[in-house]
């Protein structure tokens, strides 16, 4: 299939994607995307990371069909069973709930946290950073001072304080993490904006009478996306770890929710006798954060070659 000489159709679309003289804007865009993919594909670890992230998405989407049990169904006659028990192949927790099914449903929570934090924090950072970089002057001074103050706290500590004020719970944990995650994105967006704000094409847009908001939205923000995507992907592991930490402290997802950090916290009491209860959710967290780190490294090499 991959040999262009044996398959006319394959070689045709490939040639069209890799051509140096694209006929339309879409063809150029797709071609660029395809070249990026070819480069990404060569990094085996990054592909592994991508596969694990895709697996996480599939597991989260089809949780009811993949799980073997109801993740909240208690069975006190079958509590703290070791992995390999027939019927509960990853064992059960202190209420006799099936560990595998809880892990599967936990994938939904992990994915939801990561997606929501990114969806809240990245636009805030993008807006603050591009506005500061493009407008300059006192706007820049005020916004960057604000960013520095938020960066002055370690993110987990600041998230803890926010959760303390908002009250424990998964929604508040997401808001708290998002409120601590945006400053690095603002910095990146500002740096990108400063390098492009004096470009000729921006001057042209201004002379054509484009409003500031339109210049930011249509001419500057699209160019900041690549480095932002890289940074957000690299941050996802950190977001997962912070969320798990909040869950572990009892400030994130509340029982009986099947959140991985909270599962470790519950299993901690039994760790000396039933090691698997706390160990298995930890391994799930490691695999997923490792995958996001590998994926982020691979994306950085493709999208942002300067920084690799």
């Amino acid at each position, binding site marked *: 299939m991959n040999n262009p000489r044996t398959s006319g159709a394959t070689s045709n679309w490939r040639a069209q994607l890799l051509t140096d003289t694209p006929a339309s804007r879409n063809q150029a865009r797709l071609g660029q995307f395809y070249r990026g993919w070819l480069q990404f594909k060569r990094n085996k670890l990054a592909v592994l990371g991508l596969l694990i992230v895709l697996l996480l998405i599939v597991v989260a989407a089809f949780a009811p069909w993949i799980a073997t049990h109801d993740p909240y169904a208690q069975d006190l006659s079958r509590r703290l069973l070791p992995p390999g028990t027939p019927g509960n192949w990853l064992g059960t927790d202190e209420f006799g709930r099936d560990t595998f099914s809880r892990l599967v449903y936990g994938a939904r929570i992990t994915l939801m946290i990561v997606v929501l934090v990114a969806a809240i924090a990245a636009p805030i950072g993008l807006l603050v950073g591009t506005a500061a970089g493009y407008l300059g002057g006192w706007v820049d001074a005020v916004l960057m*001072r*604000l960013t*520095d*103050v*938020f960066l*002055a*706290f*370690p*993110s*987990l*500590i*600041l998230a*803890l*304080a*926010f*959760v*303390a*004020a*908002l009250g424990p719970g998964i929604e508040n944990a997401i808001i708290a993490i998002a409120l601590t995650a945006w400053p690095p994105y603002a910095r990146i967006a500002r740096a990108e904006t400063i390098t492009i704000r004096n470009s000729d094409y921006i001057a042209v847009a201004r002379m054509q009478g484009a409003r500031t908001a339109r210049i930011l939205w249509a001419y500057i923000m699209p160019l900041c996306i690549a480095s932002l995507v890289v940074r957000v992907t690299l941050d996802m*592991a*950190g977001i997962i*770890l912070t969320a*798990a*930490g909040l869950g*572990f*402290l*009892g*400030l994130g997802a509340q029982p009986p929710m099947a959140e991985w*950090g909270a599962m*470790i916290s519950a299993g*901690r009491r039994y*760790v*000396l006798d039933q*090691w698997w209860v*706390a*160990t298995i959710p*930890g391994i799930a*967290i*490691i695999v997923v*954060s*490792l995958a996001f*780190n*590998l994926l982020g490294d691979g994306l950085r090499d493709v999208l942002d070659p300067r920084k690799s």
Partner: protein
Amino acid sequence: MSASMGGAGALRGARRGGEFVLQVALTLLGLLAVTFFIGRVVPIDPVLAVVGDQAPRDVYEAVRAELGLDQPLWMQFWLYVQKMAVGDFGTSLVTNRPVLDDIARVFPATLELATIATIIGVVLGVPMGIAGAVYQDRWPDQLVRVIGLVGYSVPIFWLGIMGLLVFYGILGWVAGPGRLGVFFEDIVTPITGVILIDAAIAGEWEVFWNAVSHVVLPAAVLGYFSIAYIARMTRSFMLDQLSQEYVITARAKGLSEARIIWVHALKNISVQLITVIALSYARLLEGAVLTETVFAWPGLGRYLTTALLAADMNAVLGGTLVVGAVFVGLNLLSDALYKLMDPRAR
């Protein structure tokens, strides 16, 4: 001539000093603004957090006036800054003592843990990073890469629990949670608050070794994350240096490879390394919150989490402020050291 230049230099120095003070003051004011925002603006009703939702009307109004919530917001902030400036962080609801006293009592324990972890991180991380750069793409480099990647992917509290399971539960090599065994408590009078130092001063070596056996595991867990970060950064700094021309010159002159790496290149990266070490020290404060919870270590992190679970906002915000101030202080310190050690940055 020289006198006038000296005068200009002093003037420039004074202006820089002034800018520095202004910058520190602004940052601290910013920290206060954030904690004020979290304490007063984020909760829907801070009074309810104090009195509960069953309180009668007059109690509610009294507390509201006592908290200054009937004042305009800027006035509230001004009162808050004034209180904080004289170290009045309020009273903890849990311990019923001034928050600042509580923090002064628990902070040495965190400092002890973070310092030992940083020492572990420097002693192991720097040589590993150098080995990774010198043997680029060979096994020492792969090892540094794996350690770094795992360090960025493992939940620290999980690593702590696993450490307890293996080294305390199964092997029995170290003591369990806590800072001292029950039989060793209250033998040594606190002088510095750091048990290892206090025990050494008092000559109580049994207490000292018991304390060592308690601190080894949490410090190693925290230290692992320090190693991961420091080794990764050292490697990239060293790679930069080894491609410089002075290294080729030194080689051409016949200097031994060990001398080039450990004397010439290490001297050149030492300034950057200090910044990284200060940053990793600050990051350990963050890791300490979770580590201290796992190991029942009576430090600032555990104080914070206990306060959090009891919804003790004075203690939470006081602790957050102290951590923020230490974080800022370490950053400023590393900046100052940078300027002191690197003539180009002056």
